[in-house]
C-alpha cells in the first residue's frame, strides 16, 4: 500500500500590522487636501431672537447686508436693483428656495425694505431673517 504524504498547506494570511499606517496615511492625506467651500460674506453682528427655527441648508441662499448697507450675494457686492435678477436665477435653479438674510443689527431698515421689494418682484417669497438665540 502506497503511503500518502500529507502535504503541508501554507497558511494564508493578510498582514494587518501595517493597516494602521495605511489608515493614518489616508487620514492625513484627506485632512491636508480637503478644502471646504465657504462663503466669506461680510462682517456682521446678527440680532438676537427667541423663536428661531432651523433653515434647511440645501434650500437656502444667503444675502449679506452689513451695517453700512453694502449687500453681498455669492461674495459679490450687489446694488439693490440687481438683487431681483440674481435671485430669480437662483429660484430657477431651486424651486423651494428660502432667502436668508444675514443682516447686521444696526443696518437701516430702509435697505432691507428695498431688498424685500426686489425679492417680491423676483417671486422669491420665502424669506428668513437669521438671528442668534437670545439667552
Amino acid at each position: 500500500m502506497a503511503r500518502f504524504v500529507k502535504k503541508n498547506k501554507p497558511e494564508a494570511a493578510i498582514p494587518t500590522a501595517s493597516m494602521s499606517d495605511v489608515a493614518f496615511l489616508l487620514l492625513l492625506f484627506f485632512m491636508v487636501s480637503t478644502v471646504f467651500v465657504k462663503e466669506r460674506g461680510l462682517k456682521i453682528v446678527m440680532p438676537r431672537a427667541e423663536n428661531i427655527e432651523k433653515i434647511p441648508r440645501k434650500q437656502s441662499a444667503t444675502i449679506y447686508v452689513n451695517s453700512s448697507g453694502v449687500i453681498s450675494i455669492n461674495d459679490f457686492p450687489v446694488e439693490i436693483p440687481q438683487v431681483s435678477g440674481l435671485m430669480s436665477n437662483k429660484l430657477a435653479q431651486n424651486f423651494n428656495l428660502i432667502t436668508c438674510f444675514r443682516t447686521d443689527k444696526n443696518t437701516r431698515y430702509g435697505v432691507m425694505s428695498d431688498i424685500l421689494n426686489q425679492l417680491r418682484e423676483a417671486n422669491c417669497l420665502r424669506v428668513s431673517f437669521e438671528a442668534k438665540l437670545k439667552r
Partner: protein
Amino acid sequence: MKFSRKRKELSGIPTSSMSDVAFLLLVFFLSTTKFDIKKGLGIVLPPASSQADVRVKLNDKNITKVLINKEGEILVKTIDTEERIPMDKLKARIRTIVRNNPDMVISLKTDRQSQYKFMVQALDQLQAAGAEKISLSTN
C-alpha cells in the same frame, strides 16, 4: 577563549499608547468642532402687486398696525385704540388682540431710518404671540 554572544535588542515603536493618542485627538476635534447651523425667523412675502391676481381688501377692524419709529419705540394701533408700549410688553398685547380676533392681520411698519434689530425683535415677539398673519411694510 569564550566568546560571549551579544544579545540583539528588538527595535520597535511602542504601539500600546497609540489608541490613547487617537482618542485624545478624537475628543479634541469632537469638542472643538462647531457647525454653522442656520437659524432664523421665517416669513412668506406676498407676491408683487403686479403679479397678484386680486388685491385683497381687508376690513379695517381686522388690521392692527405695529409701528416702529427710528428710536425703536413702538405704537400699536387698532381701529379704535392707539397706545405706545415697550418691546417687552408687545407679546402680551398682541396675544390678547389675536385671541379676540383670530382673523387679525398684524401690519409691522418700520421706519426706513430705524435699526434692523428693532424690526427683528418685534417680529420675534409677534410670532411668539401666535400671530400668523403678519405683513411687513415701511413708510
